[in-house]
């Protein structure tokens, strides 16, 4: 099942600032809700997002229950060289998801 959508411009000019959009499928159960019988629903969220660009970390985010379900996260980076962007999400209950995107920098 599709778990993440990353949007990276396929090509960019060297030195150009590019916008990266990421969307990950996750319920982000806050841990503050209760079911219809009043029993608490356990927290189950994505807690961390890391992006690396040819192995170098360019962005890291710590997420809390206040982030909406199916977290969208948009940030920027300088297109320094062609290569691979790697996206990694981790969270409660051993949640781990990786996604990659390629970029050609002229």
């Amino acid at each position: 099942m599709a778990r993440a959508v990353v949007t990276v411009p396929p090509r960019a000019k060297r030195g150009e600032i590019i916008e990266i959009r990421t969307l990950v499928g996750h319920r982000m159960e806050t841990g503050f809700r209760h079911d219809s019988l009043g029993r608490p629903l356990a927290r189950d969220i994505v807690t961390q997002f890391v992006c690396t660009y040819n192995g170098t970390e360019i962005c890291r985010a710590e997420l809390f229950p206040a982030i909406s379900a199916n977290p969208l996260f948009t940030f920027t980076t300088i297109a320094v060289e062609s290569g691979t962007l790697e996206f990694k999400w981790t969270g409660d209950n051993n949640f781990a998801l990786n996604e990659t995107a390629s970029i050609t920098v002229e």
Partner: protein
Amino acid sequence: MTPSHMSTRREFLLAAGALALTVRPSSSHATTSMMQDAIRKVVGDAPINRGKVKLDLPPLIDNGNVVPLSVSVDSPMTPTDYVKAIHVFNEKNPQPNIVSVQLGPRAGRASISTRIRLADSQTVTAIAQLADGSFWQTTQDVIVTIAACAEEIS
């Protein structure tokens, strides 16, 4: 359990302390002081300046479950003058933290967007941590409406 040599004054203070602990109001949602504590955890004793940070939140929100949030910081993002981190806090959700983002000069621009949950109309605070160790903040008030005709369950 008190030792026989303990003074009545000490006994009184212990009892008063115990009483103070039991009458602290329990809250199922954050308060402004919880938010201040969370901010202090990140900022420490450093002063927090106003400015440089721009917080983009719609003033009137369709649904508190999904509120678009953007934070940008006025910074050249050079190797010596850049934004190290952006932290966002709230005062009325059950928990004061929203998101913490580590950036660096590679970002090009200090600008992030996401979508957040806001439990009630409240004030959102964004704090930027710069490379020189200084902290800058801005706040915004938002009004949160509730969707009509929802499901029966929680």
